[in-house]
């Protein structure tokens, strides 16, 4: 548990979160959301929560991004905000 590394990744997480809710394209939002989940997984690995990190890497960064892209494929990429 190195607090400098923790702080750096946590800052990146916050930037990715802001980018994910402010980007004007839903497909870009899906990819940014996948990156957000993966950074979150790193954060849990730092906190020694290996099981949670494993779950987030397979569920959050993997399957959830696929669901998101599938839903964007079936609806629209357009968003006004």
């Amino acid at each position, binding site marked *: 548990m190195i607090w400098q590394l923790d702080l750096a990744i946590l800052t990146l997480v916050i930037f990715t*979160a802001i980018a994910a809710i402010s980007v004007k394209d839903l497909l870009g939002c899906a990819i940014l959301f996948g990156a957000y989940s993966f950074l979150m997984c790193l954060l849990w690995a730092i906190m020694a929560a290996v099981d*949670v990190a494993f779950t987030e890497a397979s569920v959050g960064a993997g399957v959830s991004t696929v*669901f998101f892209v599938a839903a964007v494929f079936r*609806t629209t990429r357009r968003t006004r905000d």
Partner: protein
Amino acid sequence: MSDLIPILVAKYNYWLYIVLMMIGLYAMIAKNNLVKKLVGMNIFQTSIILFYVSIGCKKGATIPIIQHGMAAGHHAIDPSHYVNPLPHVLMLTAIVVSVSTFGVALALAIKTYHQYKTLEEDEILARLRPR
């Protein structure tokens, strides 16, 4: 100044988790697009999961997997050498449940799009309003 840094190191995590939670809550309230609202909901969820996991972590502790031979009886296990496993258990299931609820929410969004041909909240409300 020198006594400010320990306080900062001890508490900055909680502050950044709260900032993350505020981002999620803002997206849920103020964003106009339904899928953006769902992203906000997921950010909110992960910030709370982060908070729970961070409650369980201990400085200088290792992962909660006991080495072979350590449990044989002649070594007493010192709980302060292992991080707290209880929040991990609770949050592990919460992550998998969150992805399934995300799937159901996306299904609702697809249904809404088929009905109204848009995902923007104000356009849907304009269609719903009687003329």
